């Protein structure tokens, strides 16, 4: 954005502080160390996308080992040992430790360095202040600090790939006591080893999320435009609001756990180490008296709300796009809002359903089974409301809409396959199988990530003033959708056939994966089509990457409201100048006033005053009358 135009467009409303507007910021302050929420949002977005791609690459490497265990990786196999050190892939063959590292870092990077920064921080930063008609976040400097804390955390995670011994290898959950003793002993630096760097990087990522979340909540409470009451907020803002609360309250207990694990590793305490622990056949010289279960409790106290941190922003994005492209008000706005609040609350009391195998006892299990099943109710309400919103709409199948509609059945599959896992008895069998992998990836991959793609295509014109190419968007969408299902559907079968999710050889050496066929292939043989689908999906992202960067400069130029949407962000210029709005926005109506009867256009923006004729009560359209 160009600050000279910002001064011009801003002249009238900000005449009183014109002196502030006039001093030019240098390039570094404007684009790198910026405090403008839009720049920070874009910074978060680009970093988040880069990390998502990196996490995806790690997984593509793992898929080779699963499909062709013990075979040398062709072409790039020669180069990887030079990049990751000789212990990673000697002669192109992956070592078990490196496989574990890839698994741990895939999860960590995807969730904490990819999706959270993109879904929460990037979209939240860019869109929320615009949607509520605010000039910026309440604390712009803290906002910048949040991004830079994230950057430091991300760099530490990357650096951990290049220390002796490789990055963290105890799973993204870092279960103790395994993680406590990993990367210790001779040849490992006390600080510069994979697991310790993982912990330190995490402290920065948590700090970043906390600062961001506090900023979001304050901004939504304090900087809503005049007339923008709580029930006039776009659903996306509600989703971000609840997400921010989850981050504020759920992340600190994990931070506490991380500090304790750091103490275990650096100061040799025994928070998570039980008495009598034997490592490599030698009794460990520790005080003992700790509890490995304590880590699991603290980790999942974050871990479960984190699931909703991943999905709620996607809900919000999808809601905006569904209403916009079906040209209908979102069905059941109030139920959606209350559902999202209930989800937020319930997500704090379901965590132990990740721990059925630890044998916590029937009473505890009964409690957590009940709460887990309760939380499916608001989730189903939300999904149903989205489906009903489509009913009777005049749907425009734009690229964002394609992703948003695909989100619905994909999230549906992910959600419904979670119900067996909620039951203690069924989970004992399915736990730690590929079934679990398939279940949560349906939520976060074709679920959340489709929501994120939809959001990128949708708000791209607001950020750049140009639209991404439609044709290449569709070329991106269809193969991605097909490959997602080819990857994750067979995993349900593998999981139900008893294949363990952490097998380094993909099941080659295990009877259960080879002694019977499912639809013509054994459990182990299914790895091949899955892996090929994953690699083809990698290729399918190329049109997106090219389209994204090409459209920044050369995409089709569009006006300020290309999607004919109703919410306040579309009243600002594209791209919005520093301070966002030409005139201070005032909201007169709800967020989704599409197809109001008796109007020329099929959308009425939130800042259009209510005309006297509208004040008389009107009959709802026939298709909305309850039967």
């Amino acid at each position, binding site marked *: 954005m160009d600050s000279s135009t910002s001064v011009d467009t801003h002249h009238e409303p*900000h005449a009183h*502080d014109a002196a*502030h*507007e006039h001093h030019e910021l240098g390039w570094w302050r404007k684009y790198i160390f910026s405090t403008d929420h839009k720049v920070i949002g874009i910074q978060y977005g680009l970093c988040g996308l880069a990390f998502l791609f990196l996490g995806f690459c790690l997984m593509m490497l793992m898929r080779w080992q699963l499909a062709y265990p013990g075979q040398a990786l062709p072409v790039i196999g020669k180069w990887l040992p030079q990049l990751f050190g000789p212990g990673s892939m000697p002669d192109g063959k992956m070592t078990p430790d490196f496989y574990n590292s890839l698994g741990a870092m895939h999860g960590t990077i995807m969730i904490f360095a990819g999706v959270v920064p993109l879904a929460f921080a990037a979209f939240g930063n860019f869109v929320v202040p615009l949607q509520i008609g605010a*000039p*910026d*976040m*309440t*604390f*712009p400097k*803290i906002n910048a600090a949040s991004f830079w804390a994230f950057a430091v955390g991300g760099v530490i995670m990357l650096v951990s790939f290049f220390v002796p011994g490789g990055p963290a290898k105890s799973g993204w959950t870092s279960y103790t006591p395994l993680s406590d003793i990993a990367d210790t002993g001779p040849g490992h630096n006390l600080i510069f080893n994979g697991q310790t760097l993982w912990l330190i990087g995490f402290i920065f990522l948590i700090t970043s999320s*906390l600062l961001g*979340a*506090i*900023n979001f*909540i*304050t901004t939504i*409470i*304090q*900087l809503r435009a005049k007339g923008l009451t709580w029930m006039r907020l776009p659903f996306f803002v509600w989703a971000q609001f609840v997400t921010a609360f989850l981050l*504020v*309250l*759920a*992340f*600190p*207990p*994990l*931070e*506490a*756990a991380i*500090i*304790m694990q750091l*103490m275990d590793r650096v*100061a*040799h*305490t*025994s*928070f998570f180490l039980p008495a009598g622990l034997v490592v490599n056949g030698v009794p460990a*010289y*520790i*005080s*003992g*008296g*700790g*509890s490995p279960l*304590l880590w699991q*409790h*603290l980790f999942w*106290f974050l871990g479960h709300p984190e699931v909703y941190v991943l999905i709620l922003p996607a809900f919000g994005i999808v809601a905006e796009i569904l209403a916009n492209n079906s040209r209908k008000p979102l069905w059941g706005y109030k139920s959606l809002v209350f559902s999202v609040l209930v989800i937020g609350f319930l997500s704090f009391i379901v965590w132990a359903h990740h721990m059925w195998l630890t044998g916590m006892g029937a009473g505890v299990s009964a409690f957590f089974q009940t709460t887990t099943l309760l939380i499916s109710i608001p989730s189903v309400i939300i999904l149903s409301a989205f489906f009903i919103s489509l009913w009777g709409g005049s749907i425009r199948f734009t690229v964002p809409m394609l992703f948003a509609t695909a989100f619905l059945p994909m999230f549906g599959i992910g959600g419904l396959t979670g119900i067996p896992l909620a039951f203690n008895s069924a989970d004992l069998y399915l736990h730690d199988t590929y079934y679990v992998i398939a279940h949560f990836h349906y939520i976060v991959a074709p679920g959340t990530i489709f929501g994120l793609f939809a959001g990128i295509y949708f708000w791209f014109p607001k950020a750049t003033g140009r639209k991404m190419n439609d044709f290449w968007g569709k070329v991106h969408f269809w193969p991605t959708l097909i490959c997602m299902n080819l990857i994750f559907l067979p995993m349900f079968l593998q999981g139900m056939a008893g294949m363990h999710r952490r097998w380094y050889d993909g099941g080659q050496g295990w009877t259960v994966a080879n002694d019977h066929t499912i639809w013509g292939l054994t459990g182990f043989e299914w790895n091949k089509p899955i892996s090929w689908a994953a690699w083809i999906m990698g290729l399918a992202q190329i049109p997106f990457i090219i389209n994204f960067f090409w459209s920044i400069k050369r995409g089709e130029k569009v006006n300020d409201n290309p999607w004919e949407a109703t919410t306040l962000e579309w009243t600002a210029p594209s791209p919005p100048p*520093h*301070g966002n709005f030409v005139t201070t926005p005032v909201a007169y109506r709800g967020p989704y006033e599409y197809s109001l009867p008796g109007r020329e256009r099929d959308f009425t923006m939130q800042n259009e005053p209510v005309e006297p004729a509208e004040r008389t009560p009107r009959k709802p359209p026939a298709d909305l009358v309850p039967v």
Partner: protein
Amino acid sequence: MEIPYTVSNRPDTGLWNAKIGIWLFLASEVMLFGGLFSAYIFLRIDSPPGMWPHGLLNVPVGTMNTAILIMSSVTVVLAWASLKMRKYNAYWWYMLATIVCGVIFLTVKLAYEWPQKFDHFGVYIKTEDLGKYEQYLGNEYATEKGLPPRLEITGHLHNRAALKDPSIKEYEIALDPLNADPTNPEMDRPHFWPRPATEKIATVEKEDVQYATMFLPRHSAYFASYFTITGLHGLHVLGGVLVFIYMWLPVSKRLYQRNPEHLANRVEVSGLFWHFVDLVWIFVFPLFYLL
């Protein structure tokens, strides 16, 4: 461009921005220390009899530090009230008092309490060898009186080289009063005033030792949580003191002259933080020093 409601209230919420921000931050802090305290509870409930130490901390010093911290919470409120009444001089003095209290607290913690612990030594005796050291442990007496079993001999380590040198086969420990005279009913429970160390020296063979260490975080789950929580709390005190120093330096005077309410707001939110730090200590003190 100006962010609205940085100093004045938004009419419908009745709050300025930073006040919401600090309360949210404190909510996250509650969860952070909540996580640590629940770990303390979890580990303490889990610990076998005799494995949770008592009476190892200096209660009078802890009490004094508690009083100092509470006092500083009062002075910070007075500082804020002085600003509200536009008395900058009074503010300056109250702020100084707050800073001094914070610094005293930290000094006592870091220069006295912690080093004293680092210099203390304890050995856990192997279960099968407990009888050999009955004269220092007094387990028969303890069982008779219904006290928890005594597994550890503590005191001052005379031959520090024994910690590193495998050729030295025993520890020479100048005993703490409990181990010097284990059957004395005076020693049944910890005292408010710490008892003086004794001259009596015990020789403990390394072979009989389960685990030997100075009173470092690695000593036990108790000291692990003590050092972690007080360390994190100390960092919070340090952060608060630094913020107060910034608001006490001449730079604050300029803000005061430009917009006194803005400075008062800053003192208010950092004061809220300070009260929280104080509150954490109110939990730390009984949990580690008294119970």
